[in-house]
């Protein structure tokens, strides 16, 4: 727990899982959850580098910003998803894409 590597290891694991989710999930909300995982992985990195670089608070600021962004993104994304659902009665991404054609 005193080396940066363990944090980076966890964050990269989290990132890859998030990526996997984004790639494989069909449900838009599940995709969104994958995105959240990726964002969390990034945040861990920010904070970890912040600590191991002499407690530089800039990293914290960034992770704060990311959290805010994540919130905004989640709000907008869910709004879109609900809208799509209202219009098309599905939130499967490929269905939506196909109906668009």
């Amino acid at each position, binding site marked *: 727990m005193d080396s940066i590597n363990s944090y980076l290891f966890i964050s990269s694991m989290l990132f890859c899982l998030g*990526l996997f989710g*984004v*790639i*494989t*999930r069909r449900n838009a909300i599940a*995709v969104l959850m994958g995105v959240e995982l990726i964002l969390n992985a990034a945040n861990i990195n920010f904070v970890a580098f912040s600590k191991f670089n002499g407690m530089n608070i800039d990293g914290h600021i960034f992770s704060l910003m990311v959290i805010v962004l994540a919130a905004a993104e989640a709000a907008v994304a869910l709004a879109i998803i609900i809208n799509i659902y209202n219009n098309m009665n599905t939130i499967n*991404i*490929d269905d939506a*894409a*196909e109906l668009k054609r």
Partner: protein
Amino acid sequence: MIESPMITFPLLILFLPLISFVILIFFGKKLPRQGDWVAVGSIVTTFILAVYLFVQMLTSYDANFSHGASLSWIDMGAFKIDLGILVDNLTIVMLLIVTLVSSCTHIFSLEYMKGDVRYNRYYAYLGLFTFSMNGIVLADNLISMYMSWELVGVSSYLLIGHWFEKDSAANASKKAFLTNRVGDIGFFIGIMLLYSAVGAFTFAPIFDSISGGEAIAGMTLTLAGLGIFMGAVGKSSQFPLHIWLPDAMEGPTPVSALMHAATMVAAGVYMCVRLFPIFTADALTVIAYIGAITAILAALTAITQNDIKKVLAYSTVSQLGFMVLAVGTGVYTAAFFHLLTHAMFKANLFYCSGSVIHSMHHALHEAHDHDTDPQDMRNMGGFREKMPITYYSMLISTLAIAGVPLFSGFLSKDAILAGTLAFAQQNPVHFLLPLLGFSAAAITAFYMFRLIFMTFHGKPNMKNIFKDIHESPKEMTGPIVLLGALSFFIFYTLPSNFNPIKDKGWFKDLIVPRNSAVPGSLTANEIAEYAHYAHYLAMGLSLFVAAAGILLAVLMYQRQSISSEKLSNKFGFLYHWSYNKFYFDENYNRYLYQPFLRLANSISWLDWEFYDKYFINGFGKLTKSFSKISGKFDYDGIDQGLVDGFGRVSSVSGNFLRNIQTGRLQNYLLFVVAGILVIIIAQAF
């Protein structure tokens, strides 16, 4: 440069008709009488000038008389073309022929073409023709000869197509031009062969380097000679390009007399005479055979024709064949002599036929008969008493063409046949040449008298119009009388000889044959000597065949003791061949024109419907579909094929490929990641 009248007068002769052409084509309609006086005036002036030259020639009486002048036309440094004129005895005689017949035609046409829709154009084109014909005559180099050659073709095109409302006339004019062009291609190839070897276009240096024997010799020279001769084949309507001349009779009859009998078609012969020194023995043999074949084929065709102009047309072709035969056997001055005499009597024959057609036309017009062909001899008969001047003049010319002593044709034809006979005596392999020549002479006598008998003798075949047949006015009979008189031998044997069977005279003295430039050929003296030996035999034979031909005609058409119908039935297929002109037109049409047009159509189809549509547009389509594919890849993620490709690369994922549906956004993302992976791998290793 221009100092003596021997240069200025020929130049005037050359350019006066051109000026008349320019004036008439632009202002003809506005001038009084549509400007025919301009044309007639200019052409008569040229005739007077030509007579002056002729008198000069006779007074100096020098066989080597020669003048020349030239100017630089193209000068690129090394590549030069000088255009010039050459005035020697040959030129002067030819100029005299051209201007004389042309003047006659102009005067004859005053009446014949009266009231024509395009009267001024007619005279303009006659001027253009006379200009270009004189251009050929005066040329001292191949280029200006070729240029005039083509211009003659155009004026012929314009004049044959004078009544272009008739489809047959339009077709004939096109056919004439195109057939001539085939010959011209050969002419041009010949010019190029000569130039690339010799490096000059002017005659004199060409002859010089040929006699040097180094620049060009052997097969190349033979081919060059034959190429140039091909021009003559086209223009002088020799086999196998003879098909255009009979059709050219669609033009007005005076035009037929001027161009398609006396002058233009003789241009080919003139050229061969002028360029005789370049022909090798092989080339001459080919020329001789072509001449002989033409002579006999045309003569055979003429027997069965019923259109008076067609008979004359085939007779022209046949006589031109004689001339070419003479060139081929080496007695080229005889060819020129025949050209001269033939020009006179054949022009006259055409004028006479024109006179007959003219009165037939009027008579039919009076009878309100517009369906009967005024040129068909079966509708004539017995015109002798109605048109005595025409009759006697035509008879004289017919005697001349048949080769009866006292008339000009006898002398020239005799000289040709003697030369041919001598040639065969020297080269017995070519025995066919005199045989064909004498047969053609016999047939000539026969069909010409057939024409006379059918037209002027016997009973009138169409009684209803017979009363309206009249002698033509004096604008027409004038030339007829003049040219008829010129069919007597005396005009060609002056001043030293009054013997009708001896061809000695100014012509023989002034137009002397030159040696061939080709090393190793017979000299002119040798040829003349051989011909001299054969002379009496030839004379006897030609008298015999002429008599035989005339006798047969008398028996068949005057006495009617031999029925022509029975004869034609007996030799049915021969009759049909002859009547249908040996099916040349049909076969050319079937085996040449139609395949050619089909080729053109299929090439065009290939170009437009296939090459462009499938190949070029195929490129476009290919690019388009390519961009569609890459667009699909880009926008939709991946295509099944690419996934397959990826699966093949990584064998592990092969099993899972089936699970992959055609995904959308996420496939895209997947491949972004895969792409990053690939980049990392590439970067790492």
